[in-house]
């Protein structure tokens, strides 16, 4: 197990190294002169040249890359071109917001989706299964900005239960933020729900066909025990790993939802950086996003091997 972990971690580092190269070269290839972006259209050639020199833009690309990577690892993520402030506190702040939202999403969506998926799977092709399947698919078909706006319409304007605007401040605590997190989380849940529920349903149906379920039945075990102890133990393995994988998306991929609710998460920061051609900011945000994806994949793999002894003990 330890060997396995070390191997996985070294893979993770390799992945990050490669993606950092890709990110760096892609941002270098973006059209536009950084110095001109910073100084504006009227700047003189001498001033531009001086700035390029200062930023090290005249050095060969590999030198620029190693310098950037070295600084990044040491925690010096540079200054934003557009806001002129330190990048790191900004990204960390946004990451915290994104993590808070992701946590609320998981707490709402996972139990609900698994519950619905199990109910549907145990009643394959009966009316309750059809109802769950049709409803969850209908919801997943709608884009987030539609479901988000509908939820705002209902919960904010009609029922006046929850705020429509989720623009929290850096100083807002989790408890204070919670009411503002619920609507965006519900919107994301509607996207995830169908996905996780379908997967759970498929897992349950697949496992119910297995012969060990017959063995469990023919031992005389009560139905609930057959389902909870034998079927779900195996049926939920793929579901749990997929949930872990989707963590990466929850952290940095909720761009539309963050925009609808005006929520200051990593996704919106990334859009902001692209808008402003703010390369150091973009690089930093992307690296954090990649780290999120890589870590969630690692967690998924580890969970998989913990849950399934056939993987763990080979």
């Amino acid at each position, binding site marked *: 197990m330890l060997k396995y972990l070390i191997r996985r971690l070294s893979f993770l580092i390799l992945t990050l190294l490669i993606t950092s190269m890709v990110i760096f070269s892609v941002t270098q290839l973006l059209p536009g002169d950084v110095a001109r972006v910073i100084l504006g259209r009227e700047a003189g050639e001498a001033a531009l040249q001086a700035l390029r020199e200062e930023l090290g833009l005249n050095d060969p690309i590999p030198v620029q890359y190693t310098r950037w990577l070295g600084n990044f690892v040491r925690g010096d993520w540079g200054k934003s071109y557009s806001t002129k402030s330190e990048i790191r506190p900004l990204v960390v702040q946004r990451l915290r917001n994104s993590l808070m939202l992701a946590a609320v999403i998981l707490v709402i969506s996972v139990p609900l989706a698994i519950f619905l998926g199990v109910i549907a799977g145990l009643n394959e092709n009966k009316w309750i299964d059809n109802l769950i399947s049709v409803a969850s698919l209908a919801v997943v078909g709608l884009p987030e900005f539609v479901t988000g706006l509908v939820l705002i319409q209902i919960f904010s304007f009609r029922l006046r239960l929850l705020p429509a605007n989720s623009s929290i401040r850096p100083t807002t605590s989790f408890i204070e933020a919670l009411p503002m997190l619920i609507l965006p989380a519900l919107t994301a849940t509607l996207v995830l729900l169908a996905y996780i529920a379908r997967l759970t349903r498929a897992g349950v149906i697949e496992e119910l066909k297995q012969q060990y379920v017959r063995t469990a039945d023919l*031992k005389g075990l009560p139905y609930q025990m057959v389902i909870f102890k034998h079927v779900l133990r195996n049926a939920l393995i793929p579901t749990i790993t997929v949930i872990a994988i989707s963590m990466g998306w929850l952290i940095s991929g909720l761009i539309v939802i963050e925009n609808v609710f005006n929520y200051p998460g990593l996704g919106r920061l990334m859009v902001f950086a692209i808008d402003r051609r703010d390369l150091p900011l973009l690089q930093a945000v992307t690296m954090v996003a990649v780290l999120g994806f890589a870590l969630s994949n690692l967690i998924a793999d580890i969970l998989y091997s913990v849950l399934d002894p056939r993987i763990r003990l080979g």
Partner: protein
Amino acid sequence: MDGEQAVLTIKNLTVAYRIGDRWFEAIRDIDLSIKSGQIYGLVGESGSGKTTLAMSILNYLGENGRILKGSIVFEGEEISSFPKEKMRSYWGRKISLVPQNPLSSLNPTLPVGEQVQEVLRLHLKMSEVESRRRVLELFEQVRLAEPQRVARSYPHQISGGMQQRVMIAMALATSPRLLLLDEPTTSLDVTTQASILDLIKELIRGQEMAVLYVTHNLGVVVELCHRVAVLYAGELVEDADLEDLFQQPLHPYTFGLLKSVPKLGQNKKEQVLSAIPGQIPALSQRGSGCIFQARCPIALDRCAERPPLEKINHHRSSRCHRWEELARREISLEELFETEGEAVNTPLPVQLKTEAAALDAQGIVVEFQSQQSFFESLSRRSSRKVKAVKDVSIRIEPGDTLGLVGESGSGKTSLARALSGLNEPEAGSIRIYGLPAAPKLSRRSRDILRRLQMVFQNPEEALNPFMTVGESLRRQLFVLQGIRGEEAQRLAEEMIKAVQLPLDVLNRRPNQLSGGEKQRIAIARAFITHPDVVIADEPVSSLDVSVQAAILNLINRLQGNFNNGLLFISHDLAVVSYLADQIAVIYLGALMQLCRAADLFKPPYHPYTEALLSAVPSVKLGTKAQTIRLEGDLPSPSEKINGCPFHSRCPRKIGEICERQAPPWRVDESTQKRIYCHYTLEELSQLQSPILDLGL
């Protein structure tokens, strides 16, 4: 035993399955009664409904199954109408099942000990501690070495034989009144099967328990059962005491079944197998007449009317209109079943026969890279290689058959794939009539490819589902010999006749054919280019018993016509010894014994051969002179074994020499029997006695 109350009584049971929106009867009018202490054999091929019957008794039919009529009385209670929830107090406590496939029948993510403990806690109300202790006792009873370790293991960590022992321990934990065994040894190797059968026999004997043993293997029935019911296409055709049934079957199907299985010691030279023509009718094709009518050699007009299961005497019944004639021996079924087809009449291309053997393979070594990760392969440190075949040499003369026999994991398929070039051998030379064949398939010339053809185990996967049979055969001719057009069509038609199929199969696709028919096509495809060597890898093991014999006869006849060398691979010693002229016994990738088929049954034997012979359940009654059982399981192929590969399980191990030193080949000059052992042939002869009484 007669006066005793039956534990289970089934009357008139008919069970149907829904396919689409129609119901088809899978079993019809079954009558069966099992007493306490009785082991009842239920024999049937796939599609006979034997598992359906077992599941009906358990009241565990799927959603699409339903009992149409009849009754199942268990200990005086009519249980067929009980709801599932009520059955839960019977299952595992009064009625237990040992299923066919132990690995998939155990929960992969729970330790096996816990899976047995569950039963104890549930039915015997044991505490956690008590149940844990009891599991260890049970595991000892079923002869599991290291019960502590096994109890903690997950199913995939223990061997198939051990898994089945766990299932048996689980089934017997509550001392049920009725035990159902559904092909419990079918997925196991023959040596493992033998020890599991011993165990079942030992545990059941003297128990107040009724046992139903479901199997397709008549040999197993002989080993274990008191009574036998024969099931064919959902109907009970004969029901009798074991001895009566084997001595004089009173239904033509029973007779055919008994005669179509090659017995140990039977050889093609002495006797053609009696094959039952045709195949079991599918669920949708079962008419109102006698169910066996279409395949029966003694069918009459009145067989269009379904015969009842007639009681012949107190112990016996048969579902045949003509049982009385059979009982009085007025009809002899012996000759009637022989199905000689028409011979191939095409003049064979004259083969320039040289001194060379059809196939001569020397020093074949096959290695597999064991799974390694990307980083491990970077470090190059541990390039773990698994030797699947270790320095094997074989030689097959034209017209001769070499039977290669070995258990799963013995390397027999690896050898076949190496010879045919599908896996490139690490070392060794392959010659066909003296012509060298490149180790790699892509380097082999068209001529070599034509000369060496293969028939695979599973015809379902061997035929292209998108090609008609005609296209497959013509393509073979075109690719290997450049023959096309009318000539190819003519040759294809001839070959179809030679494999005894109607010409219209040429226009059909594989999915329109039965398993037996598909295997005939695969055989036709292998033979159509007149190969010098045919490798047949378990060609009958995926087929039903009643279809097997016909395929074996076919292979035998074609070989007679084509005079090709044949490498016939099987795990079934009886089948191999029936078809082969020479026999090679392989264990862990190394040959243990090479001899003429006729000499296989006479001592001296290699100790492994001896164990194999002893393990085969015999269809004949009372022919086993001694029993030898192997301890433990086949070592993993990645384990490095010094000395003799068999030393870890050898019942005749001499001592350290077997572990240290590779044994020499002991050769009997007069018979050319070769044995790979530290004992000399004389020493072995003295130690061993004949396993089979060949006088019978």
